[in-house]
């Protein structure tokens, strides 16, 4: 993957994180066909475990001298082969981007927020905990990176990509929230703890599993590939503002755990297709407001669906 570094004189100018400014110079592209753009990079150079907020650990060039400024919203923090010491975040990271590739150390979130335009983790280990991660565009985990997510929320306004070679993603009981218009969950077979759909025109590419909570918060979401089903092991929260539907390819939700599952329905919500596919003794039970509106299909394949006094309306 080619890497291009841009260094600009940016004194006195605060780049807005969510303007798509990066695209002026070329998109981050994860298939290697286009160069990765690193704007005003700050390279992590420490060869031994150390803290984020120490200028001695940062250089303007890969493997260069330390003493550069700690990454700011104008910089991309780069972890590559030039500094393999583990990094503990002792301060929140408000940066333009985080790019990890070739690095084999561990980045510990240490209860600190990460706010950036994009974040790409292609190698090394990330240990998340305690605080949120927010990207105004894309969030990517791939390659050999072993990524333990935050137990807070990963908020992504662009593409949430999970495309590992040998790497892993552990949800750590945290949430993933698609928040930006057109946000795209491209993470085949990933297992999440909580997924919140909070965006207009969101998309899901392939099948995935949600272990604890699926929140249909706002907007709408459609599937890309035919198998793009959400296998839900926990509960569904169908919110009153989740009803802006495209006219085709809404994704189905399959309730297929071995325990009781609950649908919490708010007034005015519209849930995409529902498939109940549980062992016979298990139950999906409705709670909340009547009616429970399903846009396309209700299929009770195996197990019991308990309407619990709430009217069922299939179709709009």
């Amino acid at each position, binding site marked *: 993957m080619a890497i291009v570094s841009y260094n600009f004189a940016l004194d006195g100018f605060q780049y807005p994180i969510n303007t798509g400014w990066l695209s002026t110079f070329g998109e981050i592209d994860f298939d290697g066909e286009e160069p990765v753009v690193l704007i005003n990079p700050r390279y992590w150079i420490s060869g031994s475990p150390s803290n984020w907020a120490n200028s001695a650990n940062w250089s303007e060039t890969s493997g260069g001298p330390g003493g550069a400024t700690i990454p700011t919203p104008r910089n991309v923090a780069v972890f590559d082969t030039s500094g393999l010491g583990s990094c503990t975040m002792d301060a929140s990271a408000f940066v333009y981007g985080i790019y990890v590739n070739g690095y084999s150390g561990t980045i510990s979130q240490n209860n600190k927020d990460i706010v950036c335009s994009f974040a790409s983790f292609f190698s090394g280990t990330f240990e998340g905990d305690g605080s949120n991660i927010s990207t105004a565009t894309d969030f990517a985990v791939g390659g050999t990176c072993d990524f333990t997510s935050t137990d807070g929320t990963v908020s992504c306004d662009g593409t949430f990509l999970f495309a590992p070679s040998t790497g892993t993603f552990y949800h750590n009981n945290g949430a993933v929230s698609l928040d930006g218009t057109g946000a795209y969950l491209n993470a085949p077979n990933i297992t999440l703890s909580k997924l919140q759909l909070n965006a207009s025109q969101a998309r899901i590419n392939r099948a995935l599993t949600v272990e604890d909570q699926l929140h249909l918060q706002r907007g709408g979401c459609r599937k890309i590939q035919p198998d793009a089903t959400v296998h839900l092991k926990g509960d569904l929260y169908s919110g009153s503002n989740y009803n802006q539907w495209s006219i085709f390819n809404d994704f189905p939700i399959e309730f297929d755990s071995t325990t009781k599952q609950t649908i919490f329905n708010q007034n005015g919500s519209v849930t995409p297709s529902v498939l109940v596919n*549980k062992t016979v003794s298990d139950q999906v039970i409705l709670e909340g407001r009547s009616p429970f509106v*399903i846009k*396309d299909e209700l299929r*009770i394949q195996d*197990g019991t*669906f308990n*309407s619990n006094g709430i*009217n069922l309306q299939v*179709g709009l």
Partner: protein
Amino acid sequence: MSITIINGTLLLDSDLACNGDIEITTSGKVIPVPDPDLMKTFYSYETNKYITANGGSRKITSTTGNVLINGIIDGIGAGFESNRGPGCNSLLTDSSGNILSGYGATHAGLGHISQYSG
């Protein structure tokens, strides 16, 4: 057009309406669930009184398609004896809004509906 397919079990203590076909497969079952309080006192009522007192008929309605029943609608499954169950209050409504004859409130004490296609 939407669709509802019941191959497992639907505990129905409300109404079901579908803008398309509704199919209860040969393995499927709909259990119309009564009001728990009425369930306690049901046996002290005459059947007709129960029906009147209940006032909570369960409706399965296909607004633009068909209701195809190859499985069962089973009041017994809700804990009632045959011919005393709340299934007697189930209403099956066809695409024209007509209640399917023989399966309404006048069919006192419905236990099962099976092998019915309409």
